[in-house]
C-alpha cells in the first residue's frame, strides 16, 4: 500500500518530467471548475434563478469572510481566495469518485498552493510598508528576534501545506484500513465524514489561513 502519487507516463519520454495521476486529476478538476463557472454565469439576470442564487450566496459568504480581515479590500482579494477555496474544495471532493485520487493528497499540489499564498502575502506586505519598512518588521520588537521571526515566516508555507496534505492523506489511510477490515456497507458513512465534511472544512480553513497570512503581512 503506497499512498503517494503514482507515475502514469513520462512527458516526451524524459525521466525528469513525470506525469502523475494526481496531476491528471488536478487538470480534470480545473476543467470541471471552468466548465461549471461558464455554465453558471452564462445568462445572468437581475432576478436570479436557482443556479445564480447559489453562486451569489457562495460569493457573499466569501465576502463576509474577507471584509472583517481585510477592510475595504475584500473585492480585490476575492478572485484569489475564492479560486483557492473552490480548487481545494473540488480537489478534495473529486477523491470520492471511485478510481480518482485527490490532487490535494499530493504534497506537490498543496506546497505549490501554499507557496503562491506565501509570495502573495509577502508582496502585499512589501506593497503596504515599502521594502525596507517590511524587512524592518522582522527585527521587531528587538533585533535579537530576527532569526526566530525569519524561521516563523518560513514555517508558514510548510505548516499551511502539511495541514491540507496530512488531513487528506490521513483520512485516506484510515479509509483504506477500514476497507481491509470490514469491506461492504460499513465504511460508507465514514466517507461522509472524511470525504465531505473534512474536505469542505479543510478547503474553508485553507482559504481562511491564506486571508490571515495576507492580513498579518499587511498590518504588522
Amino acid at each position, binding site marked *: 500500500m*503506497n*499512498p*503517494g502519487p503514482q507515475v502514469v507516463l513520462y512527458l516526451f519520454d524524459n525521466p525528469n518530467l513525470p506525469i502523475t495521476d494526481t496531476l491528471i486529476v488536478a487538470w480534470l478538476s480545473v476543467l470541471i471548475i471552468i466548465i461549471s463557472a461558464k455554465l453558471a454565469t452564462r445568462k445572468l439576470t437581475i432576478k436570479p434563478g436557482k443556479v445564480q442564487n447559489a453562486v451569489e450566496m457562495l460569493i457573499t459568504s466569501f465576502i*463576509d*469572510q474577507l471584509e*472583517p480581515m481585510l477592510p475595504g479590500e475584500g473585492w480585490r482579494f476575492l478572485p484569489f481566495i475564492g479560486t483557492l477555496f473552490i480548487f481545494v474544495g473540488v480537489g478534495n471532493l473529486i477523491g470520492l469518485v471511485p478510481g480518482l485520487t485527490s490532487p490535494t493528497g499530493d504534497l506537490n499540489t498543496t506546497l505549490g498552493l501554499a507557496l503562491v499564498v506565501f509570495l502573495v502575502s509577502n508582496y502585499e506586505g512589501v506593497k503596504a510598508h515599502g521594502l525596507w519598512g517590511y524587512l524592518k518588521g522582522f527585527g521587531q520588537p528587538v533585533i535579537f528576534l530576527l532569526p526566530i521571526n525569519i524561521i516563523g515566516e518560513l514555517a508558514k508555507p510548510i*505548516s499551511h501545506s*502539511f*495541514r491540507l*496534505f*496530512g*488531513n487528506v*492523506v*490521513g483520512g485516506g*489511510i484510515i479509509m483504506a484500513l477500514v476497507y481491509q477490515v470490514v469491506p461492504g456497507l460499513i465504511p460508507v458513512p465514514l466517507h461522509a465524514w472524511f470525504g465531505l465534511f473534512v474536505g469542505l472544512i479543510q478547503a474553508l*480553513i485553507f482559504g*481562511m*489561513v491564506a486571508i*490571515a497570512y495576507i492580513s498579518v503581512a499587511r498590518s504588522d
Partner: protein
Amino acid sequence: MIQFTPEVVEAIITTASLIGAGVAVIAGMGPGIGMGLAAGKATTAVRRQPEARGAIITTMLLGQIISGSTGIYSLVIAIFLIFS
C-alpha cells in the same frame, strides 16, 4: 562483535520506524486538549454575547488551526516513517 545479515538490519530498521511512528502520534494529545479548550472558551463567549457569534467562530477556528498544526506535523512524520 555480532555481525548482522542485511535482512536482519532491514527488519530492525522497519521495526524501529514503526515504533517511531507510533510514538510520533502521541503528540496528537496536545492539539486535542488545546482545540477543546478553545472550543469551550468560544462556547462561553457565545453564551455571553450571542450577537458576536460569527466573529467568535472565525477567531476560534483560526486559533484551533494554529494549535492543530503540531498534530498535523506528527501525523506527517508518522506517515513518512511508515511509507519511506
